[in-house]
């Protein structure tokens, strides 16, 4: 219980410290910010060990050493690549790291290119070959397949593609089609904006719900006391800054 209690107090304090940035950049926020950067760098470091190095390097090597799976020895190549990366740290051997870099760039460029070609290009074209007439579709419907909806869909896809046409000379009729394409793009951006607002507000609600939870008696009113403390600090800091005169320029973001 005590470990949890301390944890809750720390969470409440850090949450409010980050929120204090909304007022202005200040020491408490800076502290939380640097703590955040540091802790997450340490976290990544450990994740790299537990998530990749142990299962993908050490385990196969161990298996190979114990004789259960000799193919594990191939992973020594990976180790070598890794060491070549680390040679960057020495100025003289820096260039060697270009080899593993080249390997990684080549591998992933090919993988992604093929992945996109398959899932995005081919599948999306397939999905756009849709019936217009003859399939007994209704003319108009709010939801689902209808002739009007399908016409809009096809016109949209084609016009957006034409908008991305780079060889297009000025003043061709196709240019007008591309202009229609921008309308579709804007509606798309607008709707994803709308959905993003929805998601972000939910996150804020989540944080405030947590703060309400932390302000309960069983946590000794952690968020209430912390918010008083953070506000108090900001006031003192503000007064101190003003006394120091106007020479200290503020980092106000407003």
């Amino acid at each position, binding site marked *: 219980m005590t470990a949890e209690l301390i944890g809750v107090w720390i969470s409440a304090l850090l949450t409010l410290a980050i929120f204090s940035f909304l007022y202005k950049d200040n020491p408490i926020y800076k502290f939380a910010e640097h703590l955040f950067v540091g802790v997450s760098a340490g976290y990544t470091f450990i*994740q790299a060990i537990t998530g990749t190095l142990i299962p993908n390097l050490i385990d196969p090597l161990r298996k190979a050493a114990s004789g259960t799976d000799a193919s594990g020895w191939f992973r020594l190549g990976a180790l070598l690549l890794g060491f070549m990366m680390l040679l960057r740290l020495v100025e003289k051997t820096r260039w060697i790291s270009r080899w593993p870099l080249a390997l990684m760039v080549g591998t992933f460029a090919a993988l992604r290119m093929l992945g996109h070609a398959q899932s995005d290009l081919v599948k999306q074209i397939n999905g756009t070959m849709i019936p217009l007439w003859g399939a007994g579709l209704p003319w108009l419907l709010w939801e689902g397949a209808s002739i009007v909806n399908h016409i809009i869909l096809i016109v949209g896809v084609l016009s957006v593609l034409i908008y991305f046409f780079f060889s297009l000379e000025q003043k061709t009729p196709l240019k007008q089609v591309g202009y229609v394409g921008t309308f579709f793009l804007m509606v798309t951006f607008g709707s994803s904006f709308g*959905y993003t607002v929805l998601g972000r507000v*939910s996150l804020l*609600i989540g944080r405030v*719900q947590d703060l*309400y939870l932390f302000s309960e008696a069983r946590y000794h009113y952690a968020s209430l006391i912390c918010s008083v403390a953070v506000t108090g600090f900001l006031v003192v800091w503000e007064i101190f800054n003003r006394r120091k005169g106007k020479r200290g320029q503020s980092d106000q973001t407003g």
Partner: protein
Amino acid sequence: MKKSFDRRWLFLAVGLVVVVFLRIPFRLKYAPNQKTRGVYQAVESLPPGSIVYLAVDYGPSSQAELLPMHEALVYHMLKRDLRIIAGSVWESAPPVTDKAFEKVAAVLRKEGIEKKYGEDYVNLGFKAGLDVAIAKIGSSIPETYPKDYRGAPVKELPIFEDVENFDQIGLLCNLSAGSPGARQWLQQVQTRYNVRMVAGVTAVMAPDLYSFFQSKQLEGFLGGLVGAAEYEYLIERPGLGMAGMNVQSLSHFLILGFVIVGNIIYFWGRWKKRKEELE
């Protein structure tokens, strides 16, 4: 246009609306859409005793959006006597899965329904390998997860008595906050093994899923906190989702108000400038 306006007033307005109205609930009218109803009907259509595979692919940072629907779904499934096998390809997900199970089990216990770990639900934990791991789970669940999250061999668990692969799974339900997530499950498992699938995703991901719903690959999906609230409304059990809905609604209108006021100021400034130029 006033350049000197301090945007912190806007922050204050948003903050006040959230903090105050989270404590002042009011009744709202819900009109769940086809996607939400699709999820509900999919769960309702399963005969009691069926097994649902719950793929939990989100971490603590997306809890605010996904945990409410996670709890609602688990509650609904367990209450309907469905059995749940939960697994994850996100490293930070298994503790969240545990949390949701424990919470719902406690609620059901209060209602007089006893649900047992290993019999009615199980948490398989994390599997590394991203998309590849999903494909592996698709081919065989016990082979991919020889042990559950607590280290027990899954073959000894009652729930796994006759589960080998997705042929024995009645419904695949994915909760995801990014990649790998719903899209990968659709590609690797839904299409290949033709299993029924529903999903619950963050609001940012929701627009992506519309075309899969249209192509009937997904029977339904929940998008963000609103989806969770609508689901809670359908199963008649208000939870975190509905608790946040009044704030959600008001904040949207507040932001809309900002857009409108901002534009009025903009057009007014433009109009004034033009008038000055004419004079």
